[in-house]
């Protein structure tokens, strides 16, 4: 597996490609041009970037006004601020008023791990899932990021996309089909399913490879589309596999794991399930990778979780 670039950079490059073709593509930043890797974009397209200063409420409200006139707006800000400070603007000015703003949550999850919980966004999927009229995409690698951004630009609907800032391994070939509302199966096996989203997909994939060597065959799904959600793929996978582990860089409350549990239960499907994410506690701090390791969001951690889940499955 080849190491790519940060999804953040893939995002910025995609934005440049889009802006070159369409003068209505506008990036709006809240002193986040550097953090969003949009300095080259700003230099190349000075007429297509708007700076509002450190003012996230105005970032989103103003973006909604721009979008109402037909501009294809990408409001770019750290996900921790974008989805908390300006949540009411997202709810009312973007979603309720149906202004097609693309909200780009950069350095999401625990990307800013060492900066403390002020800078973590492990609530964003939960709060936005509860708001009507917004698509939610969490790309796993450069390919998914590029597709998520181009899809959002084409859709012209309220959309939230979040990703981190570390270089990501390539999980897909350029021929992979990407569609909002459809998950992508990376690996097929009937013993255990890893259902993951965003930057955790790689870790699930590596855990699945390790389990494969022990004779445990895993399905790995990249659920880049949290809303709308690919229920059919989840159910098909649950019907085939003995157990399921969900993995996310998010609170275990209200994110992918609870979405899967709720979907399965409401379709009468029960199977051993473990939700791996950030538990409800004072979150540890440090580099993202250390936080991942601490909470078992790592190939080793997920391998162990799989072993104990399958063991408990055998013992019942």
């Amino acid at each position, binding site marked *: 597996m080849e190491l790519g670039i940060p999804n953040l950079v893939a995002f910025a490059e995609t934005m440049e490609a889009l802006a070159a073709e369409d003068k209505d593509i506008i990036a709006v930043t809240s002193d986040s041009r550097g953090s969003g890797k949009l300095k080259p974009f700003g230099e190349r397209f000075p007429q297509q970037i708007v700076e509002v200063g450190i*003012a996230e409420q105005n970032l989103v*409200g103003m973006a909604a006004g721009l979008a109402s006139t037909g501009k294809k707006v990408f409001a770019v800000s750290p996900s921790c601020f974008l989805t908390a400070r300006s949540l009411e603007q997202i709810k009312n000015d973007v979603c309720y008023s149906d202004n097609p703003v693309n909200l780009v949550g950069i350095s999401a999850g625990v990307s800013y791990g060492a900066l403390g919980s002020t800078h973590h966004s492990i609530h964003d999927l939960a709060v936005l899932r509860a708001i009507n009229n917004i698509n939610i995409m969490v790309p796993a690698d450069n390919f998914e990021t590029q597709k998520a951004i181009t899809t959002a630009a084409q859709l012209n609907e309220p959309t939230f996309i979040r990703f981190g800032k570390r270089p990501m391994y390539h999980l897909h070939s350029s021929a992979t089909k990407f569609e909002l509302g459809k998950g992508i199966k990376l690996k097929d096996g009937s013993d255990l399913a890893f259902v993951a989203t965003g930057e955790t997909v790689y870790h699930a994939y590596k855990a699945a490879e390790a389990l494969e060597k022990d004779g445990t065959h895993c399905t790995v799904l990249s659920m880049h589309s949290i809303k709308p959600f690919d229920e059919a793929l989840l159910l098909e996978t649950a019907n085939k596999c003995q157990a399921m582990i969900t993995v996310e860089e998010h609170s275990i409350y209200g994110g992918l794991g609870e979405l899967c549990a709720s979907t399965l239960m409401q379709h009468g499907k029960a199977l051993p399930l473990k939700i791996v994410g950030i538990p409800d506690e004072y979150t540890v701090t440090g580099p993202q990778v250390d936080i991942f390791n601490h909470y078992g969001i790592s190939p080793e951690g997920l391998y162990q979780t799989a072993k104990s889940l399958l063991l408990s499955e055998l013992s019942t």
Partner: protein
Amino acid sequence: MTPTELEQKSIEYRKKILKYIKQAEAGHTGGSLSCIDILNVLYNEVMNVGPDNFDSPDRDRYVQSKGHSVEALYVVLADQGFFPETDLETLCQYKSHYVGHPTRKVNGIEQNTGALGHGLAISAGMALAAKMDKKSYRVFTLLGDGELAEGSNWEAAMMIAHYKLDNLTAIVDRNMLQITDRTHNVLNTEPLEEKFKAFGWQVKEVNGHDFAGLTKVLKQGAFETGKPNLVIANTIKGKGISFMEDVLKWHHGVPDDEHYKQAQQELLDQELLFKAK
């Protein structure tokens, strides 16, 4: 319309505001009566917007940030022909689009508002888009004086001045009352003129019930090239109904039968007096 015709129109609007609030047994009576003269002037004299050009990208835009005074907006939009006035019979009823705050489900409404402190930022985006596209449309937004305690207004105010959005006019319906008490007792938002000037705006103060004055100041366009415009409209909450004027309880008070009868009688008297002139 002449100021006299506008004044007569406002009496008609006030009758309707009270009628539909009474029918719905809900509404923001005081604020609707304080801002109705401003809306009257905007829609009948100033803005280039109507049912025929509402989908035009060149139309003027109005965002009612103080969304709770929606009854005033409904009555004016119906009069403009955006929808039949009979639609307002459903105000606040189950599944009616005519809810207690503006929504785009109603023809003629630009943006869904209701949570305070949102209209100015949305208007900023619209005005900035006009500058980007070299369009000449104007953007108007109506704010409450109590609403100015919301910090988001000041984020937007800074940005609007920074981008020199002189095509944007914010109007403050300064009726000096909010749901709890007099605005200066709840949280003093004054001095508004000095604050906005310090933020880089050009400010004009006007009697919010003086039709000639409102028309002049709102028609003017940019007060100074490169600066956004603030109109402080001094108004009386509950204006036009003697027992409602400047009385706190009518913020969202619905008149009982006796009060309703008296209010409509007062408006009828105003109309008769008007015709006798």
